[in-house]
């Protein structure tokens, strides 16, 4: 006698829907989307944290490959810059994995979370300041611009013209990428937000190029961690399957949306995410320090903070 497994189908549908949302955000902002996915899986489905981590890992790869196809074809992603910066990100991820045991056995992980959160917060003012420019202000090229060929061009769908840009300070971006890699290796999170900041703030690339190139890069960082996630049993096939399908659909729509919105809107969405992830990281750091609070606070407080911030940027400091 065969019965229809309604419960499993319902769960699958909901995972796919959340995945679609995570995929859209990931494709627009260049972050992995795990930060959005994990709270839902943990709080609403009681998915154990390792499986939720595995799901956000799958989401990162799916959002990267799903969106990159369109972005690379339209030349918005700068493949050369993305590949070059992978050197320090992947090296950082290895260093992070190797030092993880030391960090955890000395209970220093709280510090990493808090530092990461503070770095994200500290970038909010400059993000807000640069909202007023559709494209970054022209800055002089330096020696890395020539050596690493950091120039590029793309057709901006909103400005409706070809935009030429140059990148600079490759060394500084590489240093930030190294740190982003360490965080990925240590904490098992994508640190896509830091990658965007490295290209936007350090290299002065257009925000559209920074978010899509970060999106392109996070897939490789994640792929480097694949055997660790796999062997440690983080990947639950059913949850991973639903996530992969949802996120891929979402990232496809995300690429369509990115072509229609202004750089200002991209910055707004990204800055709100900085508030959300920054708060989440600081809270997690405090929790690891031994100050305990109910688990849902870790997701609820960032959500409230993000909503208040949305109100502030739209009504107070337009």
């Amino acid at each position, binding site marked *: 006698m065969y019965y229809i*497994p309604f419960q499993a189908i319902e769960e699958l549908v909901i995972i796919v829907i959340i995945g679609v949302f995570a995929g859209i955000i990931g494709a627009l902002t260049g972050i992995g989307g795990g930060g959005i996915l994990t709270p839902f899986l943990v709080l609403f489905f009681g998915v154990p944290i390792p499986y939720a981590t595995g799901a956000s890992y799958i989401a990162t790869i*799916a959002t990267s490959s799903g969106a990159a*196809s369109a972005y690379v074809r339209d030349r918005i992603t700068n493949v050369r810059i993305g*590949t*070059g910066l992978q*050197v320090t990100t992947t090296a950082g991820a290895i260093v992070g994995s190797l030092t993880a045991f030391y960090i955890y056995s000395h209970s220093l992980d709280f510090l990493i979370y808090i530092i990461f959160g503070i770095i994200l917060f500290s970038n909010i003012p400059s993000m807000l300041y640069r909202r007023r420019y559709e494209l970054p202000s022209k800055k002089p090229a330096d020696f890395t611009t020539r050596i690493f060929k950091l120039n590029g061009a793309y057709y901006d769908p909103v400005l409706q013209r070809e935009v030429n840009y140059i990148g600079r300070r490759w060394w500084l971006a590489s240093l930030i990428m190294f740190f982003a890699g360490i965080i990925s290796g240590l904490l098992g999170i994508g640190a896509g937000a830091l990658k965007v900041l490295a290209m936007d703030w350090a290299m002065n690339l257009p925000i559209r190029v920074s978010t899509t190139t970060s999106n392109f890069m996070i897939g490789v960082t994640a792929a480097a961690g694949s055997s660790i996630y796999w062997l440690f049993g983080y990947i639950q096939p059913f949850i991973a399957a639903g996530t992969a399908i949802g996120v891929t659909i979402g990232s496809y729509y995300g690429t369509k949306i990115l072509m229609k919105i202004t750089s200002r809107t991209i910055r707004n969405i990204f800055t709100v995410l900085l508030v959300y992830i920054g708060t989440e990281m600081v809270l997690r750091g405090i929790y690891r320090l031994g100050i305990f609070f109910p688990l849902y606070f870790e997701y609820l407080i960032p959500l409230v903070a993000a909503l208040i911030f949305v109100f502030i940027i739209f009504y107070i400091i337009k």
Partner: protein
Amino acid sequence: MSVKDRKFDIIISEILRIGVILSIVLITLGLLLMFSKGGGLNLPLQAITSSNSKFNSSLINIYSLTGVASFDGVSYIILGLLVLISIPIVRTFISLVHYIIEKDVVYIILTIIVLINILFAIFFLPFII
């Protein structure tokens, strides 16, 4: 941006697109097979779909893929996930080929370092940490 750059952008874009579609088709097919057969890899559906399921990737190895021949849903899901994970690595190899053809020494070196890092992280790292 040279004509070759443009050509390779299109090649990378197509590889990504085909890879993602292939992976999603395999995963969807796997889910349909798993639901219609009421499970997979000798496990009942409930044991696979419950959120606290003990069934995870640590129990999955190369032999889990043998179910592909007998239309085992879980095997198809695993194959789809493996395809998805391998896409970024394949893509990096294509970039290497691009830079070799262009004789772009700086980026040949950078891409080789990236590939060494990735392969080190995949094949050695889990066993030394």
